[in-house]
Protein backbone atom coordinates (compact mmCIF):
# COMPACT_ATOMS: atom_id res chain seq x y z
CA UNK A 1 0.00 0.00 0.00
CA UNK A 2 1.37 3.37 -1.00
CA UNK A 3 1.20 5.83 1.82
CA UNK A 4 1.01 9.53 1.33
CA UNK A 5 4.05 11.32 2.76
CA UNK A 6 3.27 13.43 5.84
CA UNK A 7 2.26 16.98 4.96
CA UNK A 8 5.54 18.17 6.47
CA UNK A 9 7.37 16.98 3.34
CA UNK A 10 5.01 18.49 0.81
CA UNK A 11 7.01 20.78 -1.40
CA UNK A 12 4.84 21.22 -4.47
CA UNK A 13 6.31 21.44 -7.95
CA UNK A 14 10.09 21.57 -8.30
CA UNK A 15 11.80 24.97 -8.57
CA UNK A 16 12.58 24.32 -12.23
CA UNK A 17 8.94 23.55 -12.99
CA UNK A 18 7.93 26.73 -11.21
CA UNK A 19 10.58 28.70 -13.10
CA UNK A 20 9.25 27.40 -16.41
CA UNK A 21 5.70 28.27 -15.43
CA UNK A 22 6.51 31.80 -14.25
CA UNK A 23 8.81 32.46 -17.21
CA UNK A 24 6.01 31.56 -19.58
CA UNK A 25 3.62 33.70 -17.55
CA UNK A 26 6.03 36.66 -17.67
CA UNK A 27 6.50 36.32 -21.42
CA UNK A 28 2.73 36.08 -21.89
CA UNK A 29 2.24 39.24 -19.82
CA UNK A 30 4.94 41.07 -21.77
CA UNK A 31 3.45 40.11 -25.12
CA UNK A 32 -0.05 41.05 -23.96
CA UNK A 33 1.23 44.43 -22.79
CA UNK A 34 3.55 45.19 -25.70
CA UNK A 35 1.61 43.89 -28.69
CA UNK A 36 -2.01 44.21 -27.64
CA UNK A 37 -1.97 46.80 -24.83
CA UNK A 38 -4.41 44.45 -23.16
CA UNK A 39 -3.33 45.05 -19.58
CA UNK A 40 -4.18 48.72 -19.16
CA UNK A 41 -6.80 47.92 -16.52
CA UNK A 42 -4.29 45.80 -14.59
CA UNK A 43 -1.78 48.61 -14.79
CA UNK A 44 -4.37 51.17 -13.75
CA UNK A 45 -5.57 49.21 -10.73
CA UNK A 46 -2.02 48.42 -9.60
CA UNK A 47 -1.09 52.07 -9.95
CA UNK A 48 -4.07 53.04 -7.80
CA UNK A 49 -2.77 50.60 -5.16
CA UNK A 50 0.75 51.98 -5.45
CA UNK A 51 -0.27 55.64 -5.45
CA UNK A 52 -0.47 56.21 -1.66
CA UNK A 53 2.91 54.54 -1.15
CA UNK A 54 4.46 56.74 -3.83
CA UNK A 55 2.92 59.80 -2.21
CA UNK A 56 4.49 58.83 1.10
CA UNK A 57 7.83 58.19 -0.55
CA UNK A 58 7.70 61.57 -2.24
CA UNK A 59 7.02 63.38 1.05
CA UNK A 60 10.62 63.87 2.28
CA UNK A 61 11.92 65.42 -0.92
CA UNK A 62 8.78 67.54 -1.31
CA UNK A 63 9.25 68.75 2.27
CA UNK A 64 12.86 69.67 1.54
CA UNK A 65 11.81 71.62 -1.54
CA UNK A 66 9.11 73.47 0.42
CA UNK A 67 11.57 74.18 3.22
CA UNK A 68 14.21 75.65 0.92
CA UNK A 69 11.51 77.53 -1.00
CA UNK A 70 10.35 79.10 2.23
CA UNK A 71 13.79 80.30 3.15
CA UNK A 72 14.71 81.56 -0.29
CA UNK A 73 16.33 84.90 0.21
CA UNK A 74 14.27 87.94 -0.54
CA UNK A 75 17.09 89.17 -2.69
CA UNK A 76 16.66 86.26 -5.09
CA UNK A 77 12.93 86.77 -5.23
CA UNK A 78 13.40 90.44 -6.01
CA UNK A 79 15.89 89.65 -8.73
CA UNK A 80 13.56 87.06 -10.22
CA UNK A 81 10.67 89.47 -10.02
CA UNK A 82 12.62 92.16 -11.85
CA UNK A 83 13.71 89.73 -14.55
CA UNK A 84 10.15 88.53 -15.00
CA UNK A 85 8.81 92.07 -15.27
CA UNK A 86 11.38 92.87 -17.92
CA UNK A 87 10.31 89.73 -19.75
CA UNK A 88 6.65 90.71 -19.52
CA UNK A 89 7.38 94.09 -21.07
CA UNK A 90 9.45 92.44 -23.73
CA UNK A 91 6.67 90.03 -24.56
CA UNK A 92 3.85 92.56 -24.32
CA UNK A 93 4.53 93.94 -27.77
CA UNK A 94 4.75 90.49 -29.29
CA UNK A 95 1.61 89.43 -27.47
CA UNK A 96 -0.36 92.36 -28.79
CA UNK A 97 0.82 91.70 -32.28
CA UNK A 98 -0.09 88.06 -31.84
CA UNK A 99 -3.55 89.07 -30.61
CA UNK A 100 -4.06 91.15 -33.69
CA UNK A 101 -2.85 88.40 -35.98
CA UNK A 102 -4.99 85.91 -34.19
CA UNK A 103 -8.08 88.05 -34.46
CA UNK A 104 -7.38 88.34 -38.17
CA UNK A 105 -6.84 84.63 -38.47
CA UNK A 106 -10.03 83.84 -36.56
CA UNK A 107 -11.89 86.12 -38.87
CA UNK A 108 -10.44 84.34 -41.87
CA UNK A 109 -11.19 80.92 -40.41
CA UNK A 110 -14.74 81.96 -39.54
CA UNK A 111 -15.26 82.64 -43.21
CA UNK A 112 -14.08 79.18 -44.18
CA UNK A 113 -15.01 75.77 -42.85
CA UNK A 114 -13.10 74.08 -40.05
CA UNK A 115 -11.99 75.26 -36.64
CA UNK A 116 -8.89 76.90 -35.30
CA UNK A 117 -6.26 74.36 -34.53
CA UNK A 118 -4.29 76.66 -32.31
CA UNK A 119 -3.79 75.76 -28.71
CA UNK A 120 -6.16 77.60 -26.48
CA UNK A 121 -6.40 76.33 -22.98
CA UNK A 122 -4.55 73.60 -21.23
CA UNK A 123 -4.22 71.96 -17.87
CA UNK A 124 -1.27 72.98 -15.73
CA UNK A 125 0.44 70.08 -14.02
CA UNK A 126 3.28 69.74 -11.58
CA UNK A 127 6.07 67.35 -12.43
CA UNK A 128 6.21 64.76 -9.66
CA UNK A 129 9.31 62.81 -10.62
CA UNK A 130 11.28 61.36 -13.48
CA UNK A 131 10.14 57.83 -14.27
CA UNK A 132 12.48 55.42 -12.49
CA UNK A 133 13.51 53.60 -15.60
CA UNK A 134 17.01 53.91 -17.04
CA UNK A 135 15.86 52.77 -20.48
CA UNK A 136 13.32 55.48 -21.25
CA UNK A 137 12.87 59.21 -20.89
CA UNK A 138 9.58 59.88 -19.18
CA UNK A 139 8.26 62.12 -16.45
CA UNK A 140 5.24 61.68 -14.22
CA UNK A 141 2.89 64.61 -13.62
CA UNK A 142 0.16 65.10 -11.05
CA UNK A 143 -2.88 65.20 -13.34
CA UNK A 144 -4.72 62.07 -14.37
CA UNK A 145 -8.01 60.55 -15.46
CA UNK A 146 -9.90 62.47 -12.78
CA UNK A 147 -8.79 65.75 -14.38
CA UNK A 148 -9.80 64.57 -17.83
CA UNK A 149 -6.31 63.86 -19.12
CA UNK A 150 -6.20 61.60 -22.18
CA UNK A 151 -3.32 59.67 -23.70
CA UNK A 152 -1.86 61.54 -26.66
CA UNK A 153 -2.20 65.05 -25.27
CA UNK A 154 0.78 67.26 -26.14
CA UNK A 155 2.77 68.70 -23.24
CA UNK A 156 4.60 72.03 -23.30
CA UNK A 157 6.46 74.26 -20.92
CA UNK A 158 7.29 77.96 -21.10
CA UNK A 159 9.81 77.52 -23.89
CA UNK A 160 8.63 74.67 -26.08
CA UNK A 161 7.32 71.17 -26.55
CA UNK A 162 8.14 68.80 -23.71
CA UNK A 163 6.51 65.63 -25.02
CA UNK A 164 3.27 63.74 -25.11
CA UNK A 165 1.09 61.99 -22.54
CA UNK A 166 1.52 58.26 -23.13
CA UNK A 167 -0.13 56.61 -20.13
CA UNK A 168 -2.82 57.92 -17.82
CA UNK A 169 -3.34 56.83 -14.25
CA UNK A 170 -6.11 57.87 -11.91
CA UNK A 171 -4.29 60.81 -10.38
CA UNK A 172 -1.05 60.90 -12.35
CA UNK A 173 0.01 60.51 -15.94
CA UNK A 174 3.18 59.63 -17.75
CA UNK A 175 4.67 62.02 -20.27
CA UNK A 176 7.14 60.66 -22.81
CA UNK A 177 9.73 63.32 -23.55
CA UNK A 178 10.59 64.40 -27.10
CA UNK A 179 14.10 63.05 -26.50
CA UNK A 180 12.80 59.49 -26.01
CA UNK A 181 14.03 57.16 -28.71
CA UNK A 182 11.49 56.94 -31.52
CA UNK A 183 9.24 59.70 -30.17
CA UNK A 184 8.49 61.73 -33.27
CA UNK A 185 7.01 65.20 -33.79
CA UNK A 186 6.13 66.61 -37.22
CA UNK A 187 8.02 69.88 -37.48
CA UNK A 188 8.62 72.74 -39.81
CA UNK A 189 11.63 74.99 -40.20
CA UNK A 190 10.63 78.53 -39.24
CA UNK A 191 12.99 80.23 -41.69
CA UNK A 192 11.80 78.56 -44.90
CA UNK A 193 8.84 76.35 -44.04
CA UNK A 194 10.71 73.14 -44.79
CA UNK A 195 8.82 70.23 -43.26
CA UNK A 196 10.45 67.33 -41.44
CA UNK A 197 9.95 64.90 -38.61
CA UNK A 198 11.91 65.36 -35.39
CA UNK A 199 12.70 62.04 -33.76
CA UNK A 200 14.05 61.63 -30.24
CA UNK A 201 17.54 60.18 -30.16
CA UNK A 202 17.30 58.37 -26.84
CA UNK A 203 20.05 60.59 -25.44
CA UNK A 204 19.43 63.47 -23.11
CA UNK A 205 19.32 66.82 -24.85
CA UNK A 206 19.44 65.61 -28.46
CA UNK A 207 16.82 65.26 -31.16
CA UNK A 208 17.53 63.82 -34.61
CA UNK A 209 15.97 65.10 -37.79
CA UNK A 210 16.41 62.15 -40.13
CA UNK A 211 15.74 61.88 -43.87
CA UNK A 212 16.51 65.47 -44.72
CA UNK A 213 18.19 65.55 -48.13
CA UNK A 214 21.82 66.71 -48.09
CA UNK A 215 20.79 69.65 -50.25
CA UNK A 216 18.19 70.88 -47.76
CA UNK A 217 18.60 74.44 -46.55
CA UNK A 218 19.23 73.88 -42.85
CA UNK A 219 21.73 75.87 -40.82
CA UNK A 220 22.98 75.89 -37.27
CA UNK A 221 20.63 77.80 -35.01
CA UNK A 222 17.53 77.24 -37.13
CA UNK A 223 14.33 76.75 -35.17
CA UNK A 224 12.00 73.83 -35.68
CA UNK A 225 8.36 74.41 -34.71
CA UNK A 226 5.46 71.96 -34.81
CA UNK A 227 3.81 71.94 -38.21
CA UNK A 228 0.46 70.74 -36.93
CA UNK A 229 -0.14 68.34 -39.79
CA UNK A 230 -0.44 65.37 -37.44
CA UNK A 231 -3.52 66.81 -35.74
CA UNK A 232 -1.97 66.11 -32.33
CA UNK A 233 0.38 69.00 -31.78
CA UNK A 234 -1.05 72.43 -32.48
CA UNK A 235 1.10 74.29 -35.03
CA UNK A 236 3.72 76.82 -34.06
CA UNK A 237 5.12 75.36 -30.83
CA UNK A 238 8.90 75.50 -30.65
CA UNK A 239 10.37 72.01 -30.63
CA UNK A 240 14.10 72.24 -31.14
CA UNK A 241 17.01 74.37 -32.25
CA UNK A 242 19.49 72.94 -34.75
CA UNK A 243 22.79 72.31 -33.04
CA UNK A 244 24.81 70.73 -35.82
CA UNK A 245 24.37 69.98 -39.50
CA UNK A 246 26.69 67.48 -41.11
CA UNK A 247 26.52 67.16 -44.88
CA UNK A 248 28.53 64.36 -46.36
CA UNK A 249 28.44 63.68 -50.08
CA UNK A 250 28.73 59.96 -49.36
CA UNK A 251 25.28 59.91 -47.79
CA UNK A 252 21.94 60.81 -49.26
CA UNK A 253 20.77 62.55 -46.14
CA UNK A 254 22.18 65.30 -43.99
CA UNK A 255 22.88 64.42 -40.39
CA UNK A 256 21.03 66.99 -38.31
CA UNK A 257 21.16 67.08 -34.55
CA UNK A 258 18.94 69.53 -32.70
CA UNK A 259 18.65 70.50 -29.09
CA UNK A 260 15.17 70.48 -27.50
CA UNK A 261 13.85 73.97 -26.88
CA UNK A 262 12.00 73.05 -23.71
CA UNK A 263 14.08 72.46 -20.63
CA UNK A 264 13.31 68.81 -21.07
CA UNK A 265 15.01 67.61 -17.91
CA UNK A 266 14.49 70.43 -15.47
CA UNK A 267 11.10 71.91 -14.91
CA UNK A 268 8.48 71.82 -12.24
CA UNK A 269 5.37 72.86 -14.10
CA UNK A 270 4.18 71.87 -17.54
CA UNK A 271 0.98 72.42 -19.49
CA UNK A 272 -1.08 69.61 -21.01
CA UNK A 273 -2.87 70.81 -24.13
CA UNK A 274 -6.24 69.38 -25.16
CA UNK A 275 -6.29 67.00 -28.09
CA UNK A 276 -7.35 68.58 -31.33
CA UNK A 277 -10.46 67.01 -32.84
CA UNK A 278 -9.44 64.48 -35.47
CA UNK A 279 -9.70 65.85 -38.99
CA UNK A 280 -12.54 64.33 -41.02
CA UNK A 281 -11.56 61.20 -42.89
CA UNK A 282 -12.30 60.75 -46.56
CA UNK A 283 -15.08 58.20 -46.77
CA UNK A 284 -15.36 57.03 -50.32
CA UNK A 285 -12.87 56.15 -53.01
CA UNK A 286 -13.88 59.17 -55.07
CA UNK A 287 -13.07 61.42 -52.22
CA UNK A 288 -9.73 59.71 -51.74
CA UNK A 289 -8.86 60.55 -55.33
CA UNK A 290 -9.51 64.19 -54.59
CA UNK A 291 -7.59 64.06 -51.35
CA UNK A 292 -4.41 65.93 -52.38
CA UNK A 293 -6.46 69.04 -52.95
CA UNK A 294 -7.88 68.87 -49.44
CA UNK A 295 -4.82 67.73 -47.53
CA UNK A 296 -3.70 70.18 -44.86
CA UNK A 297 -0.11 70.05 -46.12
CA UNK A 298 -0.10 72.95 -48.63
CA UNK A 299 -1.96 75.17 -46.19
CA UNK A 300 0.70 74.68 -43.57
CA UNK A 301 3.41 75.37 -46.08
CA UNK A 302 1.70 78.63 -46.97
CA UNK A 303 1.55 79.60 -43.31
CA UNK A 304 5.26 78.98 -43.01
CA UNK A 305 6.01 80.79 -46.24
CA UNK A 306 4.01 83.80 -45.14
CA UNK A 307 5.93 83.87 -41.88
CA UNK A 308 9.35 83.68 -43.49
CA UNK A 309 9.80 87.07 -45.12
CA UNK A 310 8.60 88.96 -42.07
Amino acid at each position, binding site marked *: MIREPPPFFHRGPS*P*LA*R*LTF*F*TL*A*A*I*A*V*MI*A*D*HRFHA*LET*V*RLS*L*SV*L*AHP*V*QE*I*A*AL*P*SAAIVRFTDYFTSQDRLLRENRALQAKVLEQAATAQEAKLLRAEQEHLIAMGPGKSRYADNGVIAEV*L*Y*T*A*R*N*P*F*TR*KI*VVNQGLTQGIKAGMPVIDGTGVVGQVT*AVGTFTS*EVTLVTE*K*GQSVPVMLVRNGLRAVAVGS*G*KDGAIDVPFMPASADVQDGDLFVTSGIDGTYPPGLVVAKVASVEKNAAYMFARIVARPAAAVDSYRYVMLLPLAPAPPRPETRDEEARKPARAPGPKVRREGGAGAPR
Partner: protein
Amino acid sequence: MRPADLTPVARDVMKLPASVGLMFVSLAAAYVVAVLPWSGAWLLARPDFVLLVLIFWTLNEPRSVGQGIAFAVGLLMDVSDSMLLGQHAFAYVVAVYGAQVLRVRIMSFHLPEQTLHVLGLTVTASCVMLMLNLLLGADFPGFAYFISPVLTAFAWAPVNWVLYSGAVRRRRREAAS
Protein backbone atom coordinates in the same frame (compact mmCIF):
# COMPACT_ATOMS: atom_id res chain seq x y z
CA MET B 1 23.79 23.21 20.82
CA ARG B 2 23.66 26.54 19.01
CA PRO B 3 21.63 26.81 15.81
CA ALA B 4 24.84 27.79 14.03
CA ASP B 5 26.33 24.34 14.74
CA LEU B 6 23.56 22.58 12.84
CA THR B 7 23.52 21.86 9.16
CA PRO B 8 21.45 24.39 7.21
CA VAL B 9 18.64 21.89 6.71
CA ALA B 10 18.53 20.95 10.38
CA ARG B 11 18.59 24.64 11.32
CA ASP B 12 15.65 25.12 9.02
CA VAL B 13 13.69 22.32 10.71
CA MET B 14 14.57 23.56 14.19
CA LYS B 15 13.48 27.13 13.87
CA LEU B 16 10.08 28.69 14.08
CA PRO B 17 8.82 30.43 10.99
CA ALA B 18 9.24 34.17 10.80
CA SER B 19 6.06 36.15 11.09
CA VAL B 20 4.11 36.96 7.96
CA GLY B 21 3.90 40.51 9.26
CA LEU B 22 7.68 40.93 9.25
CA MET B 23 7.89 39.62 5.69
CA PHE B 24 5.17 42.02 4.56
CA VAL B 25 6.62 45.00 6.41
CA SER B 26 10.12 44.36 5.09
CA LEU B 27 8.86 44.07 1.49
CA ALA B 28 6.74 47.21 1.91
CA ALA B 29 9.71 49.15 3.33
CA ALA B 30 11.91 48.00 0.44
CA TYR B 31 9.19 49.10 -1.97
CA VAL B 32 8.99 52.56 -0.38
CA VAL B 33 12.75 52.94 -0.82
CA ALA B 34 12.38 51.86 -4.45
CA VAL B 35 9.72 54.47 -5.23
CA LEU B 36 11.60 57.41 -3.77
CA PRO B 37 11.98 60.02 -6.50
CA TRP B 38 15.29 58.73 -7.88
CA SER B 39 16.49 60.33 -11.08
CA GLY B 40 19.53 60.76 -13.28
CA ALA B 41 22.72 59.23 -11.96
CA TRP B 42 21.02 58.29 -8.70
CA LEU B 43 18.61 56.16 -10.69
CA LEU B 44 21.45 54.12 -12.14
CA ALA B 45 22.88 53.65 -8.66
CA ARG B 46 19.59 52.77 -6.96
CA PRO B 47 20.06 49.56 -4.97
CA ASP B 48 17.20 47.15 -5.52
CA PHE B 49 16.15 46.47 -1.94
CA VAL B 50 13.01 44.72 -3.10
CA LEU B 51 15.05 42.03 -4.83
CA LEU B 52 17.32 41.79 -1.80
CA VAL B 53 14.43 41.26 0.59
CA LEU B 54 12.95 38.67 -1.76
CA ILE B 55 16.27 36.80 -1.82
CA PHE B 56 16.55 37.00 1.97
CA TRP B 57 13.14 35.47 2.53
CA THR B 58 13.67 32.87 -0.19
CA LEU B 59 16.80 31.74 1.63
CA ASN B 60 15.35 31.93 5.14
CA GLU B 61 11.69 31.08 4.65
CA PRO B 62 11.60 28.97 1.49
CA ARG B 63 8.17 27.60 2.38
CA SER B 64 6.48 30.99 2.42
CA VAL B 65 8.34 33.13 -0.11
CA GLY B 66 9.19 31.92 -3.58
CA GLN B 67 8.73 32.57 -7.24
CA GLY B 68 5.01 33.33 -6.96
CA ILE B 69 5.55 36.26 -4.63
CA ALA B 70 8.56 37.36 -6.69
CA PHE B 71 6.32 37.44 -9.76
CA ALA B 72 3.60 39.49 -8.06
CA VAL B 73 6.06 41.97 -6.54
CA GLY B 74 7.79 42.24 -9.92
CA LEU B 75 4.52 43.24 -11.59
CA LEU B 76 4.05 45.96 -8.97
CA MET B 77 7.58 47.24 -9.63
CA ASP B 78 6.89 47.30 -13.37
CA VAL B 79 3.86 49.48 -12.83
CA SER B 80 5.62 51.92 -10.52
CA ASP B 81 8.73 52.11 -12.71
CA SER B 82 6.55 52.55 -15.82
CA MET B 83 8.17 49.65 -17.60
CA LEU B 84 6.63 47.03 -19.85
CA LEU B 85 4.60 44.74 -17.57
CA GLY B 86 6.47 41.52 -16.77
CA GLN B 87 10.09 42.65 -16.97
CA HIS B 88 10.77 42.96 -13.26
CA ALA B 89 8.56 39.92 -12.73
CA PHE B 90 10.74 37.86 -15.08
CA ALA B 91 14.00 39.11 -13.60
CA TYR B 92 12.88 38.54 -10.00
CA VAL B 93 11.60 35.05 -10.76
CA VAL B 94 14.94 34.11 -12.31
CA ALA B 95 16.90 35.52 -9.36
CA VAL B 96 14.66 33.82 -6.81
CA TYR B 97 15.02 30.55 -8.71
CA GLY B 98 18.80 30.92 -8.39
CA ALA B 99 18.41 31.55 -4.68
CA GLN B 100 16.24 28.45 -4.31
CA VAL B 101 18.69 26.22 -6.16
CA LEU B 102 21.76 27.59 -4.34
CA ARG B 103 20.00 27.95 -1.00
CA VAL B 104 21.77 25.27 1.05
CA ARG B 105 25.11 26.32 -0.42
CA ILE B 106 24.60 30.03 0.29
CA MET B 107 23.37 29.40 3.83
CA SER B 108 26.49 27.43 4.69
CA PHE B 109 28.74 30.42 3.94
CA HIS B 110 29.60 33.51 5.93
CA LEU B 111 28.57 37.03 4.92
CA PRO B 112 31.42 37.84 2.47
CA GLU B 113 30.87 34.68 0.44
CA GLN B 114 27.11 35.14 0.69
CA THR B 115 27.55 38.66 -0.71
CA LEU B 116 29.38 37.22 -3.72
CA HIS B 117 26.55 34.76 -4.34
CA VAL B 118 23.98 37.54 -4.01
CA LEU B 119 26.05 39.61 -6.45
CA GLY B 120 25.69 36.79 -8.96
CA LEU B 121 21.91 36.78 -8.47
CA THR B 122 21.50 40.56 -8.73
CA VAL B 123 23.70 40.79 -11.82
CA THR B 124 21.68 37.98 -13.39
CA ALA B 125 18.44 39.82 -12.67
CA SER B 126 19.84 43.05 -14.14
CA CYS B 127 21.10 41.21 -17.21
CA VAL B 128 17.66 39.68 -17.76
CA MET B 129 16.10 43.13 -17.67
CA LEU B 130 18.82 44.61 -19.89
CA MET B 131 18.34 41.83 -22.47
CA LEU B 132 14.58 42.33 -22.53
CA ASN B 133 14.96 46.07 -23.04
CA LEU B 134 17.58 45.65 -25.75
CA LEU B 135 15.25 43.20 -27.49
CA LEU B 136 12.53 45.85 -27.33
CA GLY B 137 14.82 48.33 -29.07
CA ALA B 138 16.15 50.43 -26.19
CA ASP B 139 19.71 51.75 -26.25
CA PHE B 140 22.37 50.27 -23.99
CA PRO B 141 22.37 52.66 -21.01
CA GLY B 142 26.12 52.25 -20.50
CA PHE B 143 28.08 50.15 -18.04
CA ALA B 144 26.95 52.47 -15.25
CA TYR B 145 23.83 50.30 -15.42
CA PHE B 146 25.74 47.63 -13.48
CA ILE B 147 26.42 49.95 -10.55
CA SER B 148 22.96 49.19 -9.23
CA PRO B 149 23.35 45.37 -8.94
CA VAL B 150 26.78 45.78 -7.34
CA LEU B 151 25.47 48.26 -4.75
CA THR B 152 22.51 45.95 -4.19
CA ALA B 153 24.89 43.09 -3.38
CA PHE B 154 26.84 45.31 -0.98
CA ALA B 155 23.60 46.10 0.80
CA TRP B 156 23.18 42.38 1.50
CA ALA B 157 25.11 42.49 4.79
CA PRO B 158 23.04 45.27 6.44
CA VAL B 159 19.75 43.95 5.10
CA ASN B 160 20.64 40.46 6.27
CA TRP B 161 21.59 41.78 9.69
CA VAL B 162 18.40 43.83 10.12
CA LEU B 163 16.00 41.13 8.92
CA TYR B 164 17.78 38.24 10.59
CA SER B 165 17.94 39.99 13.94
CA GLY B 166 14.25 40.85 13.52
CA ALA B 167 13.37 37.24 12.80
CA VAL B 168 15.62 35.82 15.50
CA ARG B 169 14.43 38.24 18.15
CA ARG B 170 10.88 37.14 17.55
CA ARG B 171 11.84 33.48 17.81
CA ARG B 172 13.63 34.05 21.09
CA ARG B 173 10.61 35.88 22.46
CA GLU B 174 8.29 33.08 21.42
CA ALA B 175 10.62 30.44 22.82
CA ALA B 176 10.72 32.27 26.16
CA SER B 177 6.97 32.51 26.50
